[in-house]
């Protein structure tokens, strides 16, 4: 069956630009997570959705980062006024309701020049 998909796989942008990263979770999964993974580090939590609402956005580093999940399925992570320090792999994961395992996508590698 289809796993979590993320698009684009790679995104190169210039400092100050706006970017959108998309996540398609596994069909039927109610929980969706965004993590950021810097080179040589473990994933770092950003935000978690249960259905359409953000259940925990405590990991978003500042107000340049925003995520939506309007219909409880696809999610978009939006980064305004990108900075070089935003360069990382952005991972999305999904989980069935009341389940423990999080299934990760392949990630989007964001490079800010």
């Amino acid at each position, binding site marked *: 069956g289809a796993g979590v998909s993320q698009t684009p796989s790679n995104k190169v942008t210039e400092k100050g630009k706006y970017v959108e990263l998309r996540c398609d979770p596994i069909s039927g999964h109610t929980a969706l997570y965004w993590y950021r993974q810097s080179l040589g*580090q*473990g994933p770092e*939590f950003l935000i*978690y959705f249960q259905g359409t609402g953000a259940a925990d956005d405590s990991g978003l580093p500042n107000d340049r980062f925003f995520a939506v999940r309007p219909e409880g399925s696809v999610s978009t992570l939006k980064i305004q006024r990108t900075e070089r320090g935003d360069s990382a792999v952005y991972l999305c994961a999904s989980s069935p*309701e*009341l389940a*423990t*395992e999080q299934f990760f*996508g392949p990630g989007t590698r964001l490079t800010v020049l």
Partner: protein
Amino acid sequence: QQQVKQSPQSLIVQKGGISIINCAYENTAFDYFPWYQQFPGKGPALLIAIRPDVSEKKEGRFTISFNKSAKQFSLHIMDSQPGDSATYFCAASPQGLFQGAQKLVFGQGTRLTINP
């Protein structure tokens, strides 16, 4: 604040040997401890997970040992194979018995190389 510390950063083991990776945590609210395996260019994939009500869990060649009083847990890979060469992450999450998954706090990762 780093809440999960993982060691070693890198590990080289001969084929057939035992690979051991250790993690320690600080937050006593953590009650779900998974290990993830990640290959280059791929997302992390769950290997095995444990809750603190047991001290050990084994699945095939992979075993988690858990020491609640010391707030430490470890991954043992028996009969290590070249295909096990990957980066391994421990993680922890606060999670009630009847709740779904919550945010994971990851360790820094261990790059494991199995020499043939």
